């Protein structure tokens, strides 16, 4: 599993402008729409699905990272993006801290385990605090894409242990 398997490079956003949870979610869904990964008619449904999922329990799992996700019938295979907020957003995180890095996934309805390995890969890589720090400091989508590529290198230890 690699970030390249589930992150759409054209949907990566380096400077989210939204200042709250719903705003960030809408901005990332728009990014997927702009990248042609979802249909315009599915935007509202996906936003609601993500908000409903957040209501069950925050995906702000700490260290300034959140992993919002939802299932929706409009996607036939898992689509995802990475987005960074420079100011940070209150996401009701487990550690009470703001979130700066979002790994956002939309999964098909009928294949629920699709998001498990991408989540595991995200957790494995983002456990590395240096990698986390570099992502938070990324200034452009290209920088984020390169960081993800480096993290995908076999036995990646570019960021130390």
């Amino acid at each position, binding site marked *: 599993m690699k970030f390249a398997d589930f992150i759409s490079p054209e949907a990566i956003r380096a400077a989210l402008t939204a200042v709250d949870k719903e705003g960030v979610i809408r901005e990332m869904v728009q990014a997927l729409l702009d990248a042609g990964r979802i249909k315009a008619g599915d935007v509202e449904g996906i936003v609601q699905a993500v908000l409903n999922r957040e209501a069950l*329990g925050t995906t702000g*799992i*700490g260290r300034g990272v959140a992993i919002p996700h939802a299932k929706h019938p409009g996607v036939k295979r898992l689509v995802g993006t990475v987005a960074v907020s420079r100011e940070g957003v209150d996401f009701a995180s*487990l550690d009470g801290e703001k979130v700066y890095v979002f790994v956002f996934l939309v999964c098909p309805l009928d294949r*629920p*385990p699709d*998001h*498990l390995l991408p*989540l595991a890969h995200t*957790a494995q890589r983002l456990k590395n605090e240096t990698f986390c720090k570099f992502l938070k400091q990324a200034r452009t989508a290209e920088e984020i894409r390169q960081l993800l590529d480096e993290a995908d290198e076999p036995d990646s230890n570019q960021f130390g242990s």
Partner: protein
Amino acid sequence: MSQPTATRTVTVANRDGLHARSALAVLGCVREFRAKVELVRDRERADAGDIWQTLALGAGQGVVLRLEATGPDAEEAVDAVARLFAARFHEEDN
């Protein structure tokens, strides 16, 4: 004097596996105890009190995990976590 330990074997029974919601449930459960609880998958160990480590296991439906606890209430801790696994983390869509 060494601390009490306890172990238990559990199987991930819910359809979505040990994903974000269930990992959060495990975290909430172990926080009630003083014992340190680890989830062990083959040679991979995850501190159940660290949601990052739990998610990194990528344990899908059918995966067998060993619970290992160390601390004064180790037995109660593994009991509680095992019950959570048996209840499929109380997720409705299972």
